[in-house]
């Protein structure tokens, strides 16, 4: 046999590696079975469901006000978005009108939460790639946002703030100066992170041309949010299907065309800048008036079905609600952004190395409360 044939015959075996549910960098309970040829991944089988808590089934046995705390716990890093999603769906079906001040307060809450969620993403992704310092810097900034959200709602992670008809409480007087101060100082911190991480050559070597998601694949897999926008699709629900007075605000949608991990990084950094702008505009233009419409505690929603989606930090968080006229929903389906984004993982990691797999997973920013519900 020729030497080439001999080498081909004695090919080394491919190994199945289990990046198990407990792993420092799978961002939650996620299991990936990777078939490895040396360092290169040839096949990937993701296994999810380790955080499934039956939220949708529980919702079938709860009255609407009781469902809202459960939605906090699906995408727990962007909980305001979860609240907003279910509130919009029920308000659409029940015909509840939200006063303007309530809408603006919702926008402030969701955008602040978006910044907080992206800070967690940035910190933990950096940690996966080996930098431990931006993690602490991001959490320090996030602490300020959490204090602001705590002032608004009374809790730091599971807010239960956005309720049917508006928001729960008005803002305290000490919120305004503190929020303004945060909005002043935060953009310079973002520039610091860009200096520390984004411009760093090693970081760019780890993220450029890694995990390229083409535009066609992104659309066909149903990805959403920053993952979709980094592949060149200009689709942001805040602009395409405005809800809760987003059309009153002037902001840009972050889009990139390369579709690699670095593009997703740039899109999310830009989104943080834009969120700061939105909160600034909302604070400046906060109208007077009631913060919420009166909704009875054990209200019934008329029969019908509705799908309503919002642009959460991770993408399109949609609620499909089927009501049979009682005070409990007949079916509440949550269209989770992270679940659809996670579907591209087997496609993206083929041909990449293990280190890249970690980088890709981090750049997709999955939250497993959202994936498994």
């Amino acid at each position, binding site marked *: 046999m020729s030497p080439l044939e001999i080498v081909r015959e004695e090919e080394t075996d491919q190994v199945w590696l289990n990046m198990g549910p407990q792993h*420092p960098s799978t961002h939650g309970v996620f299991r990936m079975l990777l078939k490895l040829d040396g360092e290169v991944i040839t096949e990937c089988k993701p296994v999810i469901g380790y955080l499934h808590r039956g939220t949708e089934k529980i919702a079938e046995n709860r009255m609407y006000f009781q469902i809202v705390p459960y939605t906090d716990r699906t995408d727990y890093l962007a909980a305001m978005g979860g609240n907003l999603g279910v509130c919009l769906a029920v308000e659409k079906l029940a015909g509840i009108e939200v006063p303007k001040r309530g809408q603006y307060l919702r926008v402030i809450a969701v955008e602040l939460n978006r910044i907080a969620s992206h800070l967690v993403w940035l910190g933990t992704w950096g940690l996966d790639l*080996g930098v431990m310092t931006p993690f602490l810097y991001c959490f320090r900034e996030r602490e300020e946002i959490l204090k602001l959200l705590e002032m608004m709602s009374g809790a730091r992670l599971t807010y239960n703030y956005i309720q049917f008809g508006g928001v729960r409480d008005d803002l305290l007087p000490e919120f305004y100066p503190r929020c303004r101060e945060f909005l002043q100082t935060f953009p310079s911190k973002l520039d610091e992170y860009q200096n520390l991480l984004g411009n760093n050559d090693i970081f760019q070597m780890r993220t450029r041309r890694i995990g390229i998601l083409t535009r066609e694949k992104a659309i066909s897999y149903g990805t959403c949010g920053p993952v979709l926008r980094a592949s060149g699709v200009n689709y942001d629900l805040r602009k395409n299907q405005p809800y809760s007075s987003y059309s009153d605000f002037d902001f840009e949608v972050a889009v990139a065309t390369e579709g690699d991990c670095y593009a997703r990084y740039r899109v999310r950094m830009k989104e943080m800048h834009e969120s700061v702008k939105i909160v600034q505009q909302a604070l400046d233009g906060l109208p007077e008036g009631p913060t919420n419409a009166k909704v009875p505690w054990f209200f019934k929603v008329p029969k019908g079905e509705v799908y309503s989606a919002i642009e959460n930090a991770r993408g399109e968080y949609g609620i499909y609600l089927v009501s049979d006229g009682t005070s409990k929903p007949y079916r509440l389906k949550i269209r989770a952004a992270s679940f659809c984004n996670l579907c591209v993982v087997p496609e993206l990691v083929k041909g990449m190395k293990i280190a890249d797999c970690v980088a890709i997973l981090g750049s997709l920013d999955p939250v497993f409360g959202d994936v498994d519900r």
Partner: protein
Amino acid sequence: MIQTLQTYWKTFPPLLQYLIIFVIISGVAGGIAAYLTYFERKVLAAIQSRIGPNRVGRYGLLQPIADLMKLLQKEDIVPLRADAVLFRAAPYVVFTSGILSLVIVPFGKGLIAGDLHIGLVYLIAVSSLTVIGIFMAGWASNNKYSLYGAMRSIAQLVSYELPMGFALLGVAALAGSLRVSEIIEKQQVIWFIVPQFLGFLIFLITGIAETNRTPFDLPEAESELVAGFTTEYSGIRFGLFFAAEYLSVFIVSAFVTAFYLGGWLSPLPLPLSQALLNLTTQVLANMGLEKSFLPTLLLFNSMFWFFLKVSACIFLLFWVRATLPRFRVDQLMGFAWKILLPLSMLNLVIAGLEGIVWNLFYPT
């Protein structure tokens, strides 16, 4: 007191002398390794806007002792189908190569344990022993993760030894000798970092790579392979690997200062440093302490300057760890072979030319 100690010392048989020196040096090495973990945690914390350990003892100074106690009382686990002899021996091999390098570390003027003719070559030889230890650890653990980590680590260590050797050759060319004390003495003209800046950078980078520290810490990357070749190790065995890594941080810093930053030479001009030395001796004599042992550590003498520079270099290593992300394996190897190795050869050419110029002005 020093006089009495010295007279006693001369009466000991040589074997006892060597044994005592060995125990002292091993103790010092262990202490350095342990307290470097403490300093790293504090420095990293300060960079990250937080306070490091501060509960165990005043300012957290007893933290390494607490860590040691914790590791000692852990269960001694040897995996079932592991190669028991290799598994048990591996940490000691790695730690030994660290201690062996302490032989030629120049702590001060005339304070080298063994001033070998071939000091540089000895250094490179001994730092290659780590490779064997890591291979033993990875293989004997009977674990896929460990083997992967060990393989990566070996590839990395072996590739980065070449540029390190070339950089040191540059130093040897300038100094005209392989002996560490002579290299330091030649730096009285000018510290070698100035003519050999490229060599300094190369030696620093390869030194960081040799010790498996960020940005080259892929073998022990927590986020990927759990803990690389140390996955199956627990308790004091893991503690030894950890201590060996921090000891090698000290060693790399010690040799960076010895070869490039002038070792124990004072950075100040000679009259000024002499004046400082006289001043402190005078102050101590006034206090009546000149005969005892401890104040010799406080004088502006060679040991002081050496430790000052080593601390600066160690701080640099911690600073780099806090800032830079990790290289991927193939990028790491590409960096070593495609960038560092050609650069180190270029450095050798430059060093050769400089050596010629040097010998014109300072013929020996």
